[in-house]
């Protein structure tokens, strides 16, 4: 029995690629804010561009913070925080062209920001005012998908549509599918990899490995680094420092460019950390050590950009103060629009189920309308 148990432990920790194959982590900006070069990912950014990235990071964190507060105050039913994942989302989000199409999970508030979606729209979903309700075509940003991994197939199918439209090649388009480490265990994600591979579809799979699927650590999903799975499906996979906005920008740009040009899919594993709870209903103290959280705090995605801006002399205190003030302003705006959000008309539950008139829907709508008006008549009496 003891022998068997030892054998199992040994096989679970076995490194399939040999001891030298430590996963490479693509990094362009260290946690200390030091800029480093990578031969495959040259990145030239102006001071203004870097400051714009910093602004994105700070504002999306502020929006997230405000949403958590709104949930705590009973204004949102739930919120899925992106805390710690700002660089992965802003870096990849800013790598997209206007005609590229993004397929998010329910945590891509930073990508939504980059696509120009009003943050209040995200709150509608978490407040329970709609199931999303924004026009995905207006921002090339699909609705949030809550069933884990389902959207990876939608992105792949969309990419097959791009191919059929002849929109691959110079000036081409591509799709990007967002998902997490937990989703990589889903059948749909694996099916999406297969479809994308055999069709050479212009889609980038952007996995934010935040180390936790609610309470389950990464070793419940995989025994090899996630990016290495791509090799088995026949396309490139790579791991990027998900807390490094420069690296996320550079690798996503390159992968999207390759996809648009007809070189097929890439799996990007953005190695990051979910600094907060899974959602506002979760309690991570039940399943993870605070030491882990503390060690990731030292790799904060925003602080390193700030340090870089200061060290390089690109920005001074007034810039940071200006961004902080803007963040408060955005936070207040989000708060106000949340509080002012009207509840939908109860009868609107019957809208948009079908494209054409439907007798059953019409009948039940009339039933509810009549039931509701019976109370009004009672009140009038």
């Amino acid at each position, binding site marked *: 029995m003891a022998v068997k148990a030892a054998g199992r432990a040994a096989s679970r920790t076995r490194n399939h690629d040999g001891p030298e194959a430590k996963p490479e982590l693509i990094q362009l900006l260290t946690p200390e804010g030091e800029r480093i070069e990578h031969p495959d990912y040259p990145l030239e950014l102006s001071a203004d561009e870097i400051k714009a990235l910093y602004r994105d990071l700070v504002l999306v964190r502020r929006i997230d913070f405000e949403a958590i507060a709104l949930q705590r105050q009973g204004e949102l039913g739930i919120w899925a925080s992106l805390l710690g994942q700002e660089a992965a989302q802003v870096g990849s989000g800013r790598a997209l062209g206007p005609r590229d199409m993004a397929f998010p999970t329910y945590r891509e508030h930073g990508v939504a920001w980059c696509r120009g979606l009003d943050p209040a729209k995200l709150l509608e979903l978490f407040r329970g005012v*709609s199931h*999303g309700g924004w026009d995905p075509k207006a921002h090339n940003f699909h609705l949030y998908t809550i069933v884990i991994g389902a959207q990876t197939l939608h992105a792949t199918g969309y990419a097959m549509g791009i191919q059929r439209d002849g929109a691959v090649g110079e000036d081409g388009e591509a799709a990007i599918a967002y998902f997490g480490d937990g989703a990589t265990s889903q059948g749909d994600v694996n*099916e999406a990899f*297969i*479809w994308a591979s055999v069709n050479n579809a212009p889609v980038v799979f952007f996995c934010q490995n935040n180390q936790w699927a609610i309470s389950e650590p990464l070793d419940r999903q995989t025994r090899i680094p996630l990016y290495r799975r791509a090799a088995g499906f026949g396309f490139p996979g790579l791991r990027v420092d998900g807390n490094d906005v420069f690296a996320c920008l550079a690798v996503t740009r390159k992968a999207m460019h390759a996809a648009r040009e007809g070189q097929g899919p890439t799996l990007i594993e953005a190695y990051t950390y979910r600094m907060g709870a899974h959602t506002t209903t979760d309690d991570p103290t039940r399943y993870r050590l605070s030491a882990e959280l503390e060690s990731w705090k030292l790799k904060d995605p925003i602080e390193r950009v700030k340090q870089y801006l200061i060290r390089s002399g690109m920005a001074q205190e007034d810039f940071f103060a200006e961004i902080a003030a803007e963040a408060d302003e955005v936070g207040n705006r989000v708060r106000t629009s949340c509080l002012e959000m009207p509840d939908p008309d109860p009868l609107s539950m019957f809208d948009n189920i079908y494209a054409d008139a439907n007798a059953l829907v019409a009948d039940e709508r009339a039933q509810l309308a009549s039931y509701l008006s019976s109370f009004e008549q009672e009140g009038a009496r």
Partner: protein
Amino acid sequence: MTTLTLSRALNEGLRKALENDSKVLIMGEDVGKLGGVFRVTDGLQKDFGEDRVIDTPLAESGIIGTAIGLALRGYRPVCEIQFDGFVFPAFDQIVSQLAKMAYRSLGNLRLPITVRIPFGGGIGAVEHHSESPEVLFVHTAGLRVVACGDPADAYAMIQQSISCDDPVIFFEPKRRYWDKSEVDTSGGLADAPALDEARTLATGDDLTLLCYGPMVRTCVEAATAAREEGRSIEVINLRSLSPLDLPAIFASVRKTGRCVVVHEAPVTGGIGAEIAARVTQECFYSLEAPVLRVGGYSTPYPPSRIEEHYLPDLDRVLDAVDRSFAF
């Protein structure tokens, strides 16, 4: 008028749809060179190319999930699920994604996807090849669910389903694929009944027999046999299961006062149960007898050597007709 098998009528309908709209795609397992295991897509890949008639990897969730993505890009995919029992790996994509996308997007998105599913038993197949899962989709808001009963239905309904902006789950009675009848393929579909309209196949005064899919032929034969015994039976091919053509059902039952619903699916929680409840509510004072159901038992689909005891047939339908008259 041309004489076509039901399988061929579907093929002709699909061909018309592919010709009429360059956004129409066919996708599924073995739909290309093989022409589908029932040959419904025979020759279509040869004529329309591999980009429009797509042999997919063998994964049903992938078929529906990628079809959703293609529809978001402006295409009209027609997905083939090879057999009824194989639709379940795609159930999440159909129920949680396909059915709800228009609703979730407040109408900003439409998914004009047709999902073809050969259904029903009576072909001596191994398990998972003879099921009737239609009610699971009827229970899902956002989907239209239809079943063709004869070649004329098949030819028109597949085209109407493809041009419909809602997702349509399209059930094909696999044991009737080789039944033949006259189909008018010359003109358009202007004279065809609407997709959600029931069709009265035989008029009668004494009892309403409601059926769809493979039971259409069984019920027409039962009505003919009953007529020899002096009973005037009205047979209605429901065609659309979601939405149901309730006005047609109510009008007939108010006239006849008796109603029997026939389907292969288990009667528990089935279409018959839904119809019985609605007919009872709307036609209560016209009824001479309770609404009766003839269908599968509440068992898993049995092994094929005993499936004849599970499936409704002419005699079981006539037995139910007798029981209705005995009230």
